[in-house]
């Protein structure tokens, strides 16, 4: 009874040092035209774990914030919430600079922190000094394969006409393009580079329907 209790920071540091906090994301991205997406979904249903149930759908609103002080690279934070499940926690996500590496590295690696939060997070970030850079709605399907997450989603613009509506609804959102974004990712702890090979191997099984690759945003 008498032993003193460790602080929350102590236990977080212990978790960090024993490498159990998932903070690295291994990612491959690609896209597929609307006309071919059904075929891809079929193949994914066959390949993935949740084969017996119909694929899980999602309908998320994502806002991208950044905060910067002079002469430092901006810190980018993303806030995501499920439009179809308003009772769920909001998600605050930190994503670091993507490392593409050379040809031998199978995926993009970027540091990532996923934090569940209360719905006050938007006001919190705004007052913290963050600027809203852009926002969008993403709708689609999610599959699982072991630790991998595969999403097939369509990006929509957020309607600008309804300044009053705070939920981003009020009129059908307009799709940004004629294609779906396909992402395969694993969030794992530091130094678990073996999963990157799994991601690449899985992505190769989707060829030639969709070519998943390391996308360099700077060259787009």
């Amino acid at each position, binding site marked *: 009874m008498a032993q003193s*209790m460790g602080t929350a920071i102590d236990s977080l540091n212990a978790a960090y040092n024993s490498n159990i906090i998932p903070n690295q994301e291994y990612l491959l991205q690609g896209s597929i035209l609307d006309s071919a997406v059904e075929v891809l979904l079929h193949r994914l249903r066959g390949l993935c774990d949740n084969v017996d149930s119909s694929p899980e759908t999602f309908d998320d609103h994502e806002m991208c914030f950044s905060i910067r002080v002079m002469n430092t690279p901006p810190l980018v934070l993303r806030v995501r919430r499920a439009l179809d499940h308003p009772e769920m926690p909001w998600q605050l996500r930190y994503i670091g600079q993507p490392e593409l590496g050379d040809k031998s590295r199978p995926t993009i690696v970027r540091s990532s922190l996923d*934090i569940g939060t209360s719905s006050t997070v938007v006001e919190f970030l705004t*007052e913290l000094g963050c*600027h809203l850079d852009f926002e969008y709605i993403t709708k689609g399907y999610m599959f699982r394969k072991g630790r991998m997450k595969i999403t097939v989603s369509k990006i929509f613009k957020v309607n600008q006409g309804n300044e009053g509506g705070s939920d981003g609804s009020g009129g059908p959102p307009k799709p940004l393009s004629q294609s779906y974004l396909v992402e395969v990712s694993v969030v794992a702890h530091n130094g678990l580079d073996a999963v990157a090979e799994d991601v690449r191997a899985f992505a190769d099984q989707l060829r030639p329907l969709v070519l998943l690759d390391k996308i360099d945003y700077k060259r787009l």
Partner: protein
Amino acid sequence: MGVTVLQHYPMTENKTGAQVVDLLTKRVVALGAVQSGQFIVDCETYTSVPSLGAQRAVHVLHNSEQPASVFSLLETPGTAQGANNVGGGGGLPSETCKGLLPQDSAPPWIYGFLKVHKPRTPLRPIVRAVNDPTYLLAEYLARLLALIVGHNKHYVQDSAEFVKTLANLKLDPNDILASQNQIHNGNRKITASHSSSNKPDGSMGQSVYKKPTHTDLYLNGGNPGQTQGKLIPLVADALFDLLMMKMTNIYKSKIQTKVEARGPRFVYGGHGMGGFGSNSPAVEGDFLVKLGTVTMGTNFKGVLIEVEYRPCVIPSACWDMMREFLQGFLGSCVSSSPPQYLQGRMNEVYTPMDTIHQYLEHFTAYRKATGIR
């Protein structure tokens, strides 16, 4: 989860903190309470760096009662200074005010450019005001005004638009045309990129979430002395601490001001059978009593007692009983009215964030106290 009241226990001169906690432990045990482990609530405060504008503070608290959560309270400018401080800086934090005073300034100097393409090559005088005594003040105001740049009729986007404007301008022979360039040293030229009008993508710029910030109030509300800061709560999971570590070049913490309350935790009531549906009296009880020793850094600051009444979530329904219970073992230091923070929320459902608010109020008082409180 129930209603929690936090009570400060005034220290007497001839007792140490450990002695007070010992004494209170004996009293609580004499009542029939059973110790059930330890508790800890800690608070770390991060303040924004000056270049981010008006100073903000993020208080990050942990409560061992909710071990998977991190509670944050963002304190926006205005709170610390109160409303009646117009003469002393109009509600701006003192550090900001200090930063606006002239530092190593030089008088502005005037020089000229020869306009060689004009007849008789007149001189175009230029006043260089960089580093003049009011430069920092002007720079600060320009940053505030950046929010409305691009939204009024005096705004000129670029030189092409300026030429077009000039073409439509009728000038009398006696008129004088004055121009002012705003050029900063370094790369911090204030442009319209802060405004929503020319987002690079042109499409997804301004959001429906734009809330008035304190600067908007400052600009629209008239009297800057009336800007009231506010506390914005955020409940997040434990990884939020890692995010704060990513922000160390924007929000910095001071190790010396880290405050924590820790000590034994007791359960009481439920007559040995625990509370609702519990079969372990050491885990459940109607009352939860925590005897906290408050330390800041390594210094002892005082004793803080937390009492939670678990079967109820509406403060007004159980305050009288909680007050009697508190007075029973603490004596006259318990006031007959509810804590200030609860007074406005007596009929609302109590949440863990309300406990955090109370802790922050007390921790702030302990930080301000020079010695033991």
